[in-house]
């Protein structure tokens, strides 16, 4: 099971162009492992979506999916895996 979140802005610290930690709901989460990275660029003919998605494991063993919106340069949390 996963829980989807909408418009969850997070603040990310990057290292070597990769997310290293993020702050969400007032708490800081250190990323210990990036298990997947994927980039999408689609729907440009309607409302373009151009994002880098990361599935990451945090130091508290939370598996989450975050993404970097490349159009606005903002980060969001989208999914928390059980």
């Amino acid at each position, binding site marked *: 099971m996963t829980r989807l979140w909408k418009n969850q802005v997070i603040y990310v610290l990057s290292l070597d*162009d990769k997310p290293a930690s993020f702050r969400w709901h007032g708490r800081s989460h250190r990323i210990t492992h990036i298990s*997947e*990275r*994927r*980039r*999408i*660029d*689609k729907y*440009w*003919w309607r409302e373009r979506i*151009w994002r*880098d998605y990361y599935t990451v494991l945090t130091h508290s063993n939370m598996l989450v999916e975050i993404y970097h919106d490349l159009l606005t340069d903002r980060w969001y949390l989208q999914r928390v895996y059980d």
Partner: protein
Amino acid sequence: MTAYMTDYVELHCHSHYSLLDGASSPEALLKQANYLGMSTLALTDHDNLYGAVEFAMLARQQGIRSIHGAELTLHDQSHITLLVKNEQGWRNLCWLITQAQHNAPKGEAVLQDGALIGHSDGLIALSGCRQGRVMSALLRRDRRAALSALAQQIALFGRDNYWLELQHHILPEDDELIDTLTAMARRLHIGTVATNNVHYAVRDRSRLQDILTCIRHSTNLDDGQKYLRPSSEYYLKSAQEMVALFANFPDALANTLAIADRCQFDLKTMPQELPDYLVPEDVSAAKYLMMLCYSSTRYKPQMHQRLVHELSIIRRAGLENYFLVVWDIVQFARGHGVRCQGRGSAANSLIAYLLHISPVNPLKYDLVFERFLSDERSLVPDIDIDFDNSLREEVIQYVYEKYGADHAAMACTFITFRARSAMRDVGKALGLSPAMVDTMAKSLDVRSLDHMQDYSTAPIGTLLLDLCQQIEGIPRHLSIHNGGMILTRQPLSDYVPTEPAAMPGRVVVQWDKEGLADASIVKIDILGLGMLAMISQASEMAKVSVDDLGFDDPAVYAMISEADTVGVFQVESRAQMNTTPRFQPRTFEDIIILISLIRPGPIQGNMVHPYIRRRLGEEDVDYFHPRLEKALKSTLGVILFQEDVLKVARDLAGFTPGQGELLRRALGKKDATAALKQFEAQFVARCLANEVDRETAHTVFEKLLGFGSYSFPKSHAAAFAVAVYQSAWLRKYHPHAFYAALLNNQPMGFYTPAVIVNDARRHGVRILKPHINLSQERCTIEQTANQKAVRLGLKYIRGLGPGAMEKVLSARAAGAFTNLEDLHRRVRLSMRSLEYIIMAGAMDHLGTSRRQLFWDLGKLQHKQGELNLAFADDDIDLPSISPVEAMQLELQGSQVSTHKHVMEFYRSWCNQHGVKHSQMLIACKQQTIVHVAGQLVVRQQPPTAKGFQFLTLEDEFGFFNIIVKPDVRQAYRFVIQGASILLVRGLIQHENGVINVVAQKFKRLEPLNI
């Protein structure tokens, strides 16, 4: 190893020659490579080498080294990337692509694995993209299949020539795939290489790539998402970007340089050898050619010196065989009744004249041989020959049969997106409704996206306009060049791949005429010319020969001077008709000048009016220098023909004709500034040595520069002038045969069959409706004791194809058709075809009204069904058909109305409202306001006309010229585009014997309701 400017060479790159897939031109890719500081780039289009020559040429200009290759499709639809190391590799790649193309339907290619055996020398193989056999197996988690494919491909190419391709487009599986492939490579002792599978030069172009993908799959962006690439990462990436993606795999990056270093093949000119013409035993080709010339019926003793000169140049160029091959083709054509004549620069050759390849005696018209061939010019020139287009296929098939499909093929041509097709295809891909796309496309000029600005206010309109602009000019599909044939002694696939064309029995090479010319591969243009078919058929019907005409009949020139030239070759256009009354051609030379002068180049170069003013004595003739009088006398001091450059350079600066030809070629080239500077210095120096002052030398050279690329050899005009005179002569003296043959060869020229029929009627030639019992397939002349007329052929009945016509004619051989039921019973045509036969009036002679025939047709339709119920129709009183209805039906059924012009039905309304007909304008004073009305028959907006549009309207008395200024055109464009009968208010303009109406307002005339 060569020193490279960057740490990465892209070895897997598609241009727009990967049709409907790649979204950037070779030029755009090379410019981007240059911008990124890349010193080398590979081109690997899908299953073709379409862009290879262009890529090589442009790369050389950009200072980038080009690597040639292709991504081939194997029989399981998997891909493999092949790169050319050397000449053997090029030959093998051409051969493999040829095999793949001939092994699949047009537009597809499938290579059997077996074909690679023995044809991998000189090639480097990369394992391919995600559709490659290895990567696709790994994506299916079938490691065993991946290893098996790998082993098989290594066995084919050898460990040294096979590399595992690593690609990273930031897709979820990419990291894992790369790790696995690297591990496999290490275990099997093969190398890996990073590529980006480039499909466009820059990221922004990915949108167009999505659009092209949708067009390829006939879908739209929403419905076709499964076909679209997931991201926009398939652009030409910089070395830095690739290093970031492959930071952990430095070998894969370094190997791009190592592979590039091994690919040293440079696509330059190719030593093409033509097949041998089989000459008689103990006679060389040179001697045989000489014998043919001296024994020609056209040979005269005074030709000897020139002939010796030409033969010696041909001998030094080793082209005797070339002439014999062309002569053989012409011989075949003439022997089989196919009218033909050479055109282009070949008509500068006396040998071509003596061999009956060209109709023009070059000595008579002072045509310089060196324009065709010289010692200084190393390139072999094309020979262009026009053939009767109705019989040309016989000639092409003769060449195929004689030399074999492996040695003979046609040049290809690329059909590119133009304004309307771009609008339709892009609009559909964006998901716009078909009706909307259709409306927008119809509102566009075929060639220009200018009016699309109207739609760019809505967001989707902006997007549509942007994408249409991007896609315009991109090749959409491949077609056959209209006549260019390539012949080689070695198999063609040693030079260039071939593929089947859409037309059965035709094979095309993968380069178009520019590509072939750039690669110095000579082609023989076997062109189809409708006018030759017309002349041939008209001569046959009139039982006359036009081959020995003297070109000196004043009546023929008078007819041309009166602009009475509908249907006459080259002089029937509006621009020509507007010029001839002032020009007043009187001789064959005049015709040569006339058809050379009224062309975009001279018009743009402001040469037309000076020439005509000088001709009329309104302006002094200026030859710049007395030495040039001889060269420019016939053109009254205007440098008009390509040959004039050679003559001017010869007479003023003492250039040899060959040097003059090199100068002419430089004048016609873009980006030849450096070469022209050298020529100028040489020209001026030699003028000074010839006692020509510096100022004159510079002035004349400036004139030559202004001549630029008008590019019309006098020899070409002279060859065409023969057909001008012959067609005009036939029109003058054998009008029935002329109009019948002209109608048989439509579409051709500027006018529709309806306009031709009207013109015939105005010249007293009766045109008769199609007749189910009298019409042949083509139009014929019917002659009775007291009248002669042209009978329209069955081909003019809409919907009757060759099969249906044959059925009608063969059934009719057993006896005339007596009524509709008889025709239906004996021929079994479709109901629609029968309807068109009735509409066209082809059964009027049977005494039953057309309305009754339609009624009877309805009953026949019912009889085709199961129930044979009787209809009590005797009491039904069917109204008769009015003349207007009859005309409308004829137009629907046969495109033409033989009885009346449509404007005759409006005439009484026009008279009541002061609307003038075409013959009344001559009495109207300059600048008076008139109202005119007519049927719109020609609409032109030449690119050189600065937004002006020229309309030709027709009424029962003749034509009107309407000039539409840009602002009026903009205001009334929907009226002009949508209407066929126009009412125009405008100002009368008398100019040089031509009357124009400068339009102010347009109105559609309401449809007839009579």
